[in-house]
C-alpha cells in the first residue's frame, strides 16, 4: 500500500503522480490517494 499526494487544479483534486499500473484499488480519502496493490487487504469500501 502506498499513498500519493493530491493537488488541486481548477478546484478538482487529482493525484500528483500517476497511479501505478499494478494498483488493485485506489481510495481518495479527502486528503490523499491510497493505492492498494497485490497482497494488500482491500478496504471494506471496495467490492470483491
Amino acid at each position, binding site marked *: 500500500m502506498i499513498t500519493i499526494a493530491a493537488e488541486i487544479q481548477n*478546484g478538482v483534486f487529482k493525484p500528483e503522480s500517476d497511479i501505478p499500473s499494478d494498483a488493485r*484499488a485506489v481510495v*481518495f480519502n479527502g486528503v490523499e490517494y491510497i493505492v492498494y496493490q497485490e497482497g494488500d487487504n482491500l478496504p471494506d469500501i471496495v467490492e470483491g
Partner: protein
Amino acid sequence: MIIASRLGDGLTVIPSYTWATKPSASALPAGYKIRVTGLLPSPLEQYFYTDGTNWYPDGNQITYARSATSSTTTGTTSEVVLATIPVKALVMLHNSQCNISTAWSSSGTAGTRTIRVRLGGAAGTVICAGTLTASALHIMNMRLACRNSLSSQYTRAESFINVTLSVVAAASVLDMSADQDIVITAQSTSAADSMTLESYLVEVFA
C-alpha cells in the same frame, strides 16, 4: 526495435516506434505499417497504417484504455479525479469517434452525486455530467465524436442499471492535434458518501 515476420514468399519488416517517435505519416507511402508500443495499457500494442496523410489503427479501432481497478472518493465534497486517460495527439482524427463506458457504485446518504467526464484534463471541458440522489450501481456510457474537424467535438450519453441518471452532454472545441487528457471525476454533496468508479473502457474508432 525491428519486428520481422515472414508473409507469403517475402519477408515483411515492420518497424517499431513509440507514438512520440513514429515517423510522419506523409513521409511514407500509403499502406505502410508500423508497430506502436507504449500507447495502450501494457501489454497491449497496436499496428498503424498510413494513408499518406495520417496514421490509422490497423483494424480501424483500438481498445485505447481499460481498467477494472476500483477508484473511490470519500470524505470530501470536492470534485475528485478518479481516472485519467491520456489521448495522444492525432489518435483521434477529423471523423474519429470514441466510446467511453463507465461502471459505478455508490453508498451513503441520499445527497446528490455528480459524475463528470472532462476533455482537456482536470480543468478541461465537461463533455458529460450525470447526477443521481441515491446509492446505486449504474453504468454511464457516452460517445465523443469529432465533427469532421480536429477542433470540434460533440458528446451524447446514456445511463442505465438500477437508477436513471440525469445526464447532460456538451460540445467541446479541444484541439485533438495536441495531447488531451480525458478525466473521469466524482463529487458528492456529503462527505459521508462514497462513489466508486468500478471500471472504464475507452474505444477509439478511426
